């Protein structure tokens, strides 16, 4: 296990457990994610990666253990409050808003919009219009970066699978996240878009966004992640760089059964 000083750690999970009907999906799982890193979470099928990610995102409450984010205990915090603190998760399946346009999808990701309360929407129109003008410019820039700008007034439901993936990532960036939880961001999209997604994620690290990525494709992990955590039967077995992991005999044994 790598040691890190507390300020360097953005997400700290200790002893997280969760079982479903007698099956221990995650058991005493501990993981520390360093600020500014791209950490990969790999492991054989059924190792509990997705469940673990869901407990961090808040969709599943752990039965034991503690999760701190940015120094705050978030173990029992509702999903939307985690998101408001900058802990954003993306989904394995499409999570676009199909009957909102691409640009509306982007704008729906704004976190502190003064027009998102009844009072604000009705009585502070000038304020939220000014806010939206600024964020709209930002959203359009992001869409250019993600090469979705030509589709900005198209309904998100009409995009292709890969474009939806890009939109979801762009939307996640739009929230100005601190930590992004990505569940297989490159699955089911063509190689050109896949390279694009990797490029975007690397670019995000440069902006100071931390990423925790669940990924099956080891070549993507190698290209993307500076730290890799290997999960086997519900807990993290090893953590280190990809080279270290590939040489570790415990990991090899776990993967080969």
């Amino acid at each position, binding site marked *: 296990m790598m040691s890190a000083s507390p300020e360097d750690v953005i997400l700290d999970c200790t002893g997280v457990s969760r079982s479903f009907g007698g099956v221990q999906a995650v058991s005493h799982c501990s993981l520390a994610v360093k600020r500014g890193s791209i950490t990969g979470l790999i492991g054989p099928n059924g190792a509990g990666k997705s469940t673990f990610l869901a407990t961090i995102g808040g969709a599943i409450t752990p039965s034991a253990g503690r999760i701190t984010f940015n120094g705050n205990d978030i173990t029992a915090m509702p999903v939307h409050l985690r998101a408001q603190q900058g802990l954003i998760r993306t989904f394995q399946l499409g999570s676009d808003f199909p009957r909102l346009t691409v640009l509306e999808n982007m704008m729906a990701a704004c976190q502190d919009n003064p027009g998102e309360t009844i009072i604000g929407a009705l009585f502070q129109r000038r304020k*939220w219009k000014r806010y939206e003008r600024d964020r709209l410019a930002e959203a359009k820039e992001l869409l250019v970066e993600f090469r979705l700008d030509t589709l900005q007034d198209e309904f998100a439901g009409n995009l292709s699978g890969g474009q939806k993936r890009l939109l979801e990532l762009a939307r996640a960036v739009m929230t100005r996240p601190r930590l992004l939880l990505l569940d297989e961001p490159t699955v089911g999209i063509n190689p050109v878009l896949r390279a694009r997604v990797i490029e975007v994620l690397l670019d995000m690290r440069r902006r100071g966004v931390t990423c925790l990525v669940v990924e099956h494709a080891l070549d993507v992990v190698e290209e993307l992640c500076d730290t890799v955590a290997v999960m086997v039967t519900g807990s993290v077995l090893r953590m280190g760089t990809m080279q270290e992991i590939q040489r570790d005999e415990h990991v090899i044994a776990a993967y080969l059964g």
Partner: protein
Amino acid sequence: MSFYIYTLVIFACSFGIASLGLNLQYGLTGTLNFAYVLFFALGAYIGGMVALGSQNAPIAQSLGEQFAFGLSLSLPYPLGPLAAALAGALLAAVVGLVLKRSLRDDFGALATVAIFLVAYTLAGSYTPAVNGYDGIAGIPSPFGDENTLLYVFVAVGWLALSYIIAAALSNSPYGRRMRAIREHPEAAEALGKPIFRTRMTVFILSNAMAALAGAVLVAFVSAWSPLSWQFPETLVFFSAVIVGGRGNNLGAVLGAMLIGVALQQAVLFLPAIPAAPTLIPALQWVITGVITIMFLWWRPSGLLPERKTNWRSLQPWSVRLGALRLGARSKPQ
């Protein structure tokens, strides 16, 4: 003849307000509430009972004594609708808190059916509350019987106010949040939107609008009983929203005109067929149901589909007018 037109205008205003409310909760936020007409009815009862007074017609006096909470207040006009809206909001808060997270799924919708049916049966069989199946009558006209035209204008004013609020909300970032929650609640939650609180807020607001609509109607028709709010009545509002266009406020009002007024009310003034007086009303319901299903299948977006955001409206008027003058106006989307 003028009374006929007044009647239609009042019905249009009342049903328009109620359809706007249903559009907020069903069309925009995706909450399914089959007890919607219960809130409408509650507003009518409250609005009527607040206005009923001991100095009104004798029928009102005899009724007034039977009410458990003795509302012979004879309060001046705007208090009736306001009290109605407040009561609707309170009932919505209670229902919403009981259903909690089920507010979004089909089981919650089924529970609203049960809530409606029980409330309906109780309103009819427990006479001390709202005088049972006889209902309340003799509700005074707000500005006197000779000033009906004035009340028509007031009713139009209520509709205008409701429309302004509904339109301002749905075109704001709050409206975008409502639509996001309708489209994909989990994703909206993961983007930091409090879905239960938002649903709840819209549920309270829109059901208050339904109650207001009931109060607007009862001040004109002057009587209210369970016969006016049977279970299928909710379908009128659903039909109005679906035919008009889910998510479009103008569509909701248009739907209320077409389904609520033209199909359901205007025909009531046709001479009845002597041999079968119930044939025409029964066929109206059949047509309402069939039209709803046909729209859901062939034109689910309705006559006026939900509009995409007009980003240009974010610009201050000076900029927008300037662009017009320069002829730089690009094609609208």
